[in-house]
């Protein structure tokens, strides 16, 4: 590790700043972590510069960082997905007690950690339903729900969805951003 953060010996939580759900969760974590000077965790957006990310950890790939939540540990290792969530919970004073259960082993397996991994996967899959265009198309098992949500929107006065080509994430203009 070569960044100033590494000198503080704090893990770095990287979050997807283009995803509203992720921004909301990062805000809550930041609030729970308290004063940045005394917090045991650094929370920072992934950003748009692959080189800057590699300066945090040479093994950190920006595509991978956007695909799955990453926590970069002070020793240079990385925790991903549910393991990263457990690490965040472990670092927050309010949830440190809960994080202990994810280390419990039963017959060599960590059932609570497995449940957390599954919960993270479900949350990651569900993000597009909350209007996160940058998160991609909903996973196959969620498409009926996505269809229902899209179909129900006009009933509540929301504008009909604008037809758009597949595999496409609409760019946020300044005007569009201002309306949210």
């Amino acid at each position, binding site marked *: 590790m070569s960044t100033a953060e590494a000198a503080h010996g704090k893990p770095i939580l990287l979050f997807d700043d*283009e995803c509203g759900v992720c921004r909301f969760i990062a805000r809550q974590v930041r609030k729970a972590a308290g004063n940045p000077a005394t917090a045991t965790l650094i929370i920072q957006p992934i950003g*748009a510069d692959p080189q800057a990310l590699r300066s945090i950890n040479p093994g950190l790939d920006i595509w991978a960082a956007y*695909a799955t939540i990453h926590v970069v540990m002070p020793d240079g290792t990385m925790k991903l997905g549910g393991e990263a969530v457990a690490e965040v919970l472990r670092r927050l004073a309010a949830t440190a007690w809960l994080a202990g259960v994810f280390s419990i082993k039963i017959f060599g397996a960590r059932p609570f950690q497995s449940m957390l991994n599954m919960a993270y996967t479900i949350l990651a899959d569900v993000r597009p339903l909350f209007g996160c265009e940058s998160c991609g198309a909903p996973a196959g098992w969620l498409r009926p729900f996505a269809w229902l949500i899209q179909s129900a929107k006009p009933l509540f006065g929301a504008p009909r969805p604008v037809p758009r080509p597949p595999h*496409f*994430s609409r760019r946020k203009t300044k005007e569009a951003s201002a309306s949210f």
Partner: protein
Amino acid sequence: MQFDAITTLNAAAFDAMVVQANGPVAVEFMSYGCAYCRALEPVLQRAAEVVQAEEKIFRVNIAVEPGLAESYDIQGTPTLVMFRDGSETGRVEGPPPVLADILAYVTQPA
């Protein structure tokens, strides 16, 4: 990613490598946070390796270069814009992450 076959351009490099270039050039307007761009990336890397003798493929990160995105009226990502001798000859919004399709787009005649 171990080897990047696609060079990322900033505005100054875009002018030199695309606008003032001779021959065909393809530019992917993308964003790292876009899941569709992530799906397309390995396919585009493969396409860049296949066509490297005849054509260059570049990327422009619209989060870093919003001015270029405005200039080329990029409505979303990924958008693949084809140029020949500095002039746009075609574009495709949200190309499917299929190598045959990408090769067809980037090698389409002007």
